[in-house]
């Protein structure tokens, strides 16, 4: 008997699967997460994987959360320890009173366990070996057998799991029945040999609603399809590769001409990131909507072209799925660490538009919107995701589209417009005072509207010039254009605390679910915070006023150097003392517990006991 009473919780716990990568566990684990969703109970799963294909440790964490807290929680209530390499660490990570599920075929010395946890042994290898002869089958069905055992232990409805298996193997009867068989093999063994259920249970609920379960990369790629992207050039890099792969598969289904079968898109795997962004810029210059997806090292390589996009004013979209840097860093770990690198990418004076979606639904919307923004502003737009949003399935609101929506192709002069009497075309002429000039697509008119695009300085009519005044005039117009952008990009969202407060918090991107949950934790500690979720750079004027309205504001982000805070200080001339950095950067997704502790501790320190009172 453990010296700690077993954790008892319905629809609110964390299960972590410790596996070896390449063992086929991923699909069984995902099946587990999906089957809980089918019970109407929200889950938030996360892959924790190495930069490797086979043989290294990988984890899959499922937070079961009836309250809908989709951020990572921290801690493990049930460890499914299937990887001997990480056994000690895995066992150590279980919460006191938690559960350890393991393959008990081979007896383990008692020193390998802990007294304060509940151990559940299932002889998985023995069961599989007595049922299957093919080694690959043994490996794959072992995963389904443990899933079956978990069904019994957590009181999952096997019919719902069967239904999911049925959907997955629709039309493949043999696979379907063998998977269902393996599921029951595990479930029956557990029911006969173990006390089921344990203290952790899943009970049917109705908290999922119409929400969908999708990875941010796939949603962003779908946003590119809906936003009218026709050219995608990319170079494989974790964690962004699945954007281009998803774009490919979405296009295969949605973008072929029904009559001819031909593709209404072109996807090129470039030889490197430089070529990829070059292709994007060439295509955009020529009037197609084009994008690339990459991660930090790719951004570093693309910076020369990013400067060209800024200076020559060529629309382009980069989806940056951020991972932990610098250098190769931790390629399979999450961070929000490219804020400064992207905001000011390239040599010389440059500034770029950044969008910060919080989840897949917003990634879809912002991805589609980024093409309108790129065309309208004739500049580079960065869609800033991170590994946590991009590569994990996330429960989010359904994707929405308005069929009446037209693409905003921005200021493009057509042949008819060029022929209008009195029309003056200057590629870099600010006709409307918003800093945005007109452009023409190549091939528009036999004698009018052509111009020479260059990264060198030029006058308003695109003629080469190294005149100081001409150069400065152009650079000032680019500043005006960036000011115009401020009111076009998604605005920050603000939510006030239940009671008036002098303190605020700013956060963005994948921090959102953890922040939402942390607000509750902080309230229970007696701390009230107004919050603002920044969704884009350049910052809307409400950011400065939000800061002005509070004594100080916490800025929560997932990097070491407080990059968003730096950007706010730099761009809005804010006194840095007013912005308190709350930084999480170990490569794991930020948790509500972390935020609540960091902010809570800081708030507690503010409650200074007056000196006179202390001595009296």
């Amino acid at each position, binding site marked *: 008997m453990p010296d700690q009473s077993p954790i008892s919780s319905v629809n609110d716990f964390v299960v972590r699967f410790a596996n070896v990568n390449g063992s086929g566990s991923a699909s069984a684990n995902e099946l587990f997460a999906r089957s809980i969703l089918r019970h109407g109970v929200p889950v938030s799963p996360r892959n924790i994987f190495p930069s490797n294909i086979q043989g290294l440790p990988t984890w899959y964490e499922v937070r079961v959360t009836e309250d809908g807290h989709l951020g990572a929680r921290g801690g493990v209530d049930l460890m499914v320890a299937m990887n001997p390499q990480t056994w000690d660490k895995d066992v150590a990570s279980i919460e006191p009173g938690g559960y350890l599920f393991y393959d008990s075929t081979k007896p383990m010395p008692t020193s390998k366990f802990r007294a304060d946890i509940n151990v559940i042994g299932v002889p998985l290898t023995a069961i599989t070996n007595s049922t299957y002869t093919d080694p690959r089958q043994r490996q794959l069905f072992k995963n389904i057998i443990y899933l079956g055992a978990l069904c019994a232990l957590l009181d999952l409805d096997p019919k719902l799991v069967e239904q999911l298996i049925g959907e997955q193997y629709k039309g493949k009867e043999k696979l379907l029945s063998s998977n269902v068989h393996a599921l029951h093999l595990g479930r029956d063994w557990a029911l006969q040999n173990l006390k089921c259920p344990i203290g952790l249970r899943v009970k049917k609920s109705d908290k999922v609603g119409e929400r969908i379960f999708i990875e941010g990369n796939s949603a962003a790629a779908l946003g590119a399809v*809906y936003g009218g992207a026709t050219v995608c050039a990319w170079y494989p890099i974790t964690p962004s590769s699945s954007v281009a792969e998803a774009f490919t598969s979405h296009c295969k289904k949605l973008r072929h001409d029904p009559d001819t079968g031909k*593709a*209404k898109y072109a996807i*090129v795997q470039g030889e490197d990131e*430089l070529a990829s962004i070059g292709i994007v810029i060439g295509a955009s210059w020529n009037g197609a909507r084009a994008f690339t997806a990459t991660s930090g090292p790719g951004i570093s390589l693309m910076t020369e072209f990013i400067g*060209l996009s800024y200076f020559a004013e060529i629309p382009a979209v980069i989806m940056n799925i951020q991972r932990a840097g610098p250098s190769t860093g931790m390629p399979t770990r999450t961070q929000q660490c490219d804020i400064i690198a992207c905001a000011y990418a390239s040599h010389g004076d440059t500034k770029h538009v950044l969008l910060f979606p919080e989840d897949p639904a917003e990634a879809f919307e912002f991805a589609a919107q980024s093409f309108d923004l790129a065309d309208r502003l004739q500049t580079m737009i960065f869609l800033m995701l991170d590994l946590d949003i991009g590569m994990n399935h996330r429960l989010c609101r359904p994707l929405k589209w308005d069929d009446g929506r037209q693409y905003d192709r921005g200021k493009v002069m057509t042949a008819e417009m060029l022929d209008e009497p009195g029309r003056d075309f200057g590629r870099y002429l600010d006709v409307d005072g918003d800093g945005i000039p007109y452009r023409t697509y190549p091939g528009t008119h*036999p004698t009018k509207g052509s111009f*020479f695009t*260059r990264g060198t300085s030029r006058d308003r009519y695109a003629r*080469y010039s190294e005149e100081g005044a001409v150069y400065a005039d152009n650079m000032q117009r680019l500043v005006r254009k960036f000011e115009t952008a401020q009111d076009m990009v998604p605005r920050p969202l603000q939510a006030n605390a239940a009671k008036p407060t002098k303190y605020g918090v700013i956060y963005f991107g994948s921090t959102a679910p953890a922040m939402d949950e942390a607000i509750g934790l902080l309230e229970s500690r007696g701390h009230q915070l107004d919050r603002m979720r920044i969704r884009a750079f350049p910052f809307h004027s409400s950011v400065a006023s939000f800061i002005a309205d509070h004594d100080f504001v916490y800025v929560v982000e997932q990097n070491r150097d407080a990059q968003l805070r730096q950007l706010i200080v730099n761009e809005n001339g804010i006194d840095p003392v007013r912005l308190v950095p709350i930084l999480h950067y170990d490569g794991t997704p930020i948790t509500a517990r972390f935020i609540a502790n960091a902010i809570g501790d800081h708030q507690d320190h503010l409650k200074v006991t007056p000196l006179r009172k202390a001595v009296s």
Partner: protein
Amino acid sequence: MTYIAKPKFHHPGLPKNELGYTHRDYEGKISTLCAGCGHDSITASIIEACYELSIEPHRVAKISGIGCSSKTPDYFLGNSHGFNSVHGRMPSVLTGANLANRDLIYLGVSGDGDSASIGFGQFAHSIRRGVNMTYIVENNGVYGLTKGQFSATADRGSKSKKGVMNTDNAIDLVAIALQLGASFVARSFSGDKSQLVPLIAAAIRHKGASFIDVISPCIAFNNHAGSTKSFDYVREHNDAVNRLDVLTGRDPITVDYAPGTVQVVEQHDGTRLALRKIDADYDANDRLAAMTFLQKHAAKGQVVTGLLYVDPDSEDLHTHLDTVETPLNTLEATDLCPGTAALEKINASLR
């Protein structure tokens, strides 16, 4: 000299092509290159080739990288859109432009620094993808704009203007282009316009990756004794394998060729290339033989010129990607956006 306006008037009797354009309609701004630069002769050849083919100037997109050669697109086809991009990155920009609109003619202009050094990778990959383009390298063996450093096409043993010997091996872009599957490969000399003009015309009419390496002496930094890219050296060592006549339209071949001395190649668009053989054994349809021939002659210090290889059944990147005939840049939301009904189905599949 871009600040000097080029006079617009011209002789009223200037000949016109089928579209009614004169040579002047294919010109650009005044060149700012050194007087006597080989590149200016290539510019003149491009103008001549486009005039002869009766191309609508605005239907050409001219794209370049950085360097003396990459400045030249400003000096021809003034009514075309041009893009002087980033050093060594013309091929990727051109590839993207081509994907966006398959209906334009893509003329990529690059130099030996641009294509054999910083952009060697992009050169290689655009060729192996079969991008439908005419890729011209204005090859002078030096970095002109930074005053005379060796480039990667400088021959081993050749001397710089300051007398320094080049000890690195040279990259032969023609040999590489052949190896990478370019479906049209030629080499020429800026000083031989009669050879160069038809080569450019044929390349423009070719479907797929056309590559022309044009030896173009740098009058300022690489035209001295000891250089293998000087006017004198190239004239002395030029070993042309054929002379080309480009025959467009349905005109019968009227030129009288001696039997067995002409190889006629019909291209995708019906253009016929009549190759008058100078080297009787040279077969411009044989990639492997061309590669061997080049290596053998290079070893003897000869500069092999002419149409070295052409594949009349070539394909291009759009063929490989199976893209729609309509240029992608003209597709509207109605063509591209799957709409709410499709999205509802997607949502349903994600529950």
